[in-house]
């Protein structure tokens, strides 16, 4: 995966290439957590596979051995064998328990000054907030988290409705988002690139379509991205985009979505201020292209049945204008 910048084309290229099948894999570690877990996974798997093999071999021997009269010491020998095997079991699980415990301790070691990002689960999308740490204003976005490479990150996880579970396997293990509780995850993203995650706890109709992207960037690019996200939406250039914004504000769109710098100030759906800067729309369902935006607005219930975005009837030229405007929100 060579993609460092985010343009949708790169994503599409990635999606079509088979080499990308590792972008949501517990066995393709790109973060401190997953690396520690992978380092535990393989030895444990190997040890257990050996145990299984040993038991199978003894079983095969028991079935295939030549039958002789049962010797007088059989009971005593069997007893010793059974107790030895049981003791070996105790030993194996003791070692594994200690190894587990050490890994957990290693993973949850916290750095002094982590980057804090709040992630809130909604049916069926993710709200991402970079809190205002230095008076320059918070950044709210959705379904895509940008991270600086090499710096410890603390995700503060919560849920607005039902239980969700935050899981980006290439970075670290999953953590549930539970209404009425606050959970967190700490990890360091170790290589730049785009990773995928998706909700791991069944959360209703569109649980299958609740994905997100993690964009891991060099620190300078991350800071530039964050600064750009702090800006309000750029004023529309040209009559078509102006029309698009006006329609968005006047029709029900603005009642659910916020676009900072415009009259649209809804709180229910994802913040769309820099909508087109993201790689996907509808929580990972479609690539971010103008055509996909138009298709989504025209018929959200066929693309993602049961999601909370209603169909807002628009005339063809209105649909053109709104999707053109949204595609300009970079």
């Amino acid at each position: 995966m060579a993609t460092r910048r985010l343009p949708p084309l790169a994503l599409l290229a990635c999606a079509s290439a088979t080499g990308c099948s590792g972008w949501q894999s517990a066995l393709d570690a790109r973060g401190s957590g997953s690396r520690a877990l992978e380092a535990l996974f393989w030895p444990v798997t190997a040890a257990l596979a050996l145990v299984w093999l040993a038991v199978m071999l003894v079983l095969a021997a028991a079935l295939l051995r030549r039958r002789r009269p049962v010797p007088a010491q059989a009971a005593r020998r069997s007893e010793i064998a059974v107790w030895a095997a049981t003791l070996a079991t105790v030993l194996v699980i003791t070692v594994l328990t200690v190894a587990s415990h050490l890994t957990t301790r290693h993973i949850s070691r916290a750095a002094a000054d982590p980057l804090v990002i709040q992630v809130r689960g909604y049916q069926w999308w993710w709200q991402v907030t970079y809190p205002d740490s230095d008076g320059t204003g918070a950044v709210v976005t959705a379904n895509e988290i940008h991270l600086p490479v090499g710096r410890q990150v603390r995700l503060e996880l919560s849920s607005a409705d039902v239980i969700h579970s935050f899981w980006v396997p290439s970075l670290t293990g999953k953590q549930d988002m539970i209404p009425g509780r606050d959970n967190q995850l700490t990890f360091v993203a170790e290589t730049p690139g785009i990773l995928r995650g998706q909700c791991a706890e069944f959360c209703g109709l569109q649980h299958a379509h609740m994905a997100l992207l993690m964009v891991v960037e060099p620190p300078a690019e991350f800071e530039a991205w964050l600064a750009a996200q702090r800006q309000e939406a750029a004023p529309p250039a040209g009559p078509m985009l102006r029309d698009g914004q006006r329609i968005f504000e006047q029709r029900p769109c603005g009642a659910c979505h916020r676009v900072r710098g415009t009259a649209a100030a809804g709180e229910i759906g994802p913040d769309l201020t820099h909508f087109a800067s993201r790689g996907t729309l509808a929580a990972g369902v479609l690539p971010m292209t103008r055509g996909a935006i138009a298709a989504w607005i025209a018929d959200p219930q066929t693309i993602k049945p049961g999601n909370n975005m209603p169909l807002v009837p628009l005339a063809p030229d209105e649909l053109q204008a709104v999707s053109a405007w949204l595609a300009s929100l970079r």
Partner: protein
Amino acid sequence: MSSDARPRGLRDHQLDDAAGAEALERTWRTPSGWRGFFTTVDHKIIGRRYIVTAFIFLALGGILGLVMRLQLAWPEARYLDPDLYNQIFTMHGSNMMFLFAVPVMEAMGVYLVPLMVGTRNIAFPRLNAFSYWIYLAGGLLLWISFALGMAPDVGWFAYVPLSGPQYGAGKRADIWAQMITFTELSALAVAVEIVVTVLKQRAPGMSLDRMPLFVWTMLVTAFVIILAMPAIMIASTSLILDRLVGTHFFNPAEGGDVLLWQHLFWFFGHPEVYIIFLPAVGMISTILATFSRRPVFGYEPMVLALVGTALLAFGLWVHHMFTTGLPRVAEGFFTASSMAIAVPSGLQIFCWIVTLWYGRPVYRTPLLYVLAFFFTFIIGGMTGVMVASVPLDTQLHDTYFVVAHFHYVLIGGAVFPLLGAVHYWFPKITGRMPSERLGRWSVALTFIGFNLTFFPMHLLGLQGMTRRIYTYQAEMGWGGLNLFVSLSALVLAAGFLVFFVNLGRAARHGEPAGDNPWGAPTLEWATASPPPPYNFAMIPVVRSAHPLWDDEEVLPVASGLRVDRRELLVTRVTDARPEARESSPRNSIWPFWSAVATTIMLISSIFTPWAVVWGAVPIAIALTFWFWPRGMPEEES
């Protein structure tokens, strides 16, 4: 000669064999036709019914599994919409756990335990009849709701708040919760019957250390049921209350707690796994002993391992909640306890291998199923150790790895032994032998089909495929393995089909089995196949753990029981010394009507809390008739 003309208090030793059998037949028989169908309290008829019903639910649940595999065979398939898919996976899980696995294990106990301990009927036979009708009603409730398109869609563990009043629309979650009430009610009833049958009705001389291992497993399982089920009944009742009358047990906005549901559910849900697995352990021990022609090695360690597993089963529930954000100490404790369950399980496996080592294995179908068990279940045990580790579980939890793991444990650990056991006891139940050739085909197809279906799921889970998704995008790269899995599922289904065809054919055309076709050592083989309504003409007396091996020619018997009324022998808990002659209830229609009344009340209470009030009236009437004295000889004592 009418029964009135007979002298009262006629005992079995006062008659010759033929006359005794005839008198017992008259006393214990179930009338033919519809009347007998609804009134019988014979544990064999009810047990058979239970087993057949449970296997019908298995077939239905299996078909749902195939439908899911059709949807998942290709990325972005559109055979099922998400709503239907969610209903189907919820139905599959709930059906398999609550309508198949637990009932079928108890059903085997209902049929076999009274025969294996040498008594004439199960304790509380009318309760037994009642429990079957309640179970059937719960199953019908779930499946009729599915046929009407209003089946539960919240998963078999129905996590709140998704299943709560705010997010679970309609009556779907209520139907799920009430189905739980039905099945738990019947499971608890059977558990009580089994405990009393085992502890008080064993044949004279069958002290605790001479009890067949299968009976031990059913006894321990029954205790686990009695201790675990109340947690789920509290949970499902609280959920219904939250939904019906607005209590806030699980609503964090009103001081309730979402995680409370998970604790209550899994405090039951984990022991549930052992409720399914422990009887299978008993089946394996039974089959292994018979087909390696020697007793299972290590009787005491086996029993201790059973009890140890049952105790540990109550200390593991939190390992289903490792990703909810628990304190570190709790994580460490539950990791250790979850891994510790490997010790008693391992001990049992080692004892079985030693049994085979010094035995002379006879490779008939039941033993082949047990060998399939060893191969698959131990893989499930190994992946179980992996998910017991908190850090590994954070990657594996809620993915297809876990789907693979629990199918390895449940199908490998419980269903394979069960299929072997059904094959093994089929001659006793029907009097006819199943075909060995078809039996081997079914073992081969289910074993190969199972492993090809479920092993790749481990890899899918590691590649990030989460469970309970109705589709996935092509770019995830999961398409190839999923197609392979779906095709393999057809092989597995073919194996089950052969199994059903074999038994269906054998039930009509099988070779007559005789009393003891396998040369087995336990008491159920000491009577005819199928057993007469009274099980044993004379109650056997037991002098060893393997009476039919050690007393080869004639089994000693106890006499003195009356034949003109239903009477059985009550013995002491520890050494089974006879204590009393006790009457056993006659057939009655009232367990059926009580179940109907209970069903009406429980289903109506999904819609209005007042149903609990007015619905209690018919139940009270039915119960009154159930217990009303009728001047039967059974009421004398």
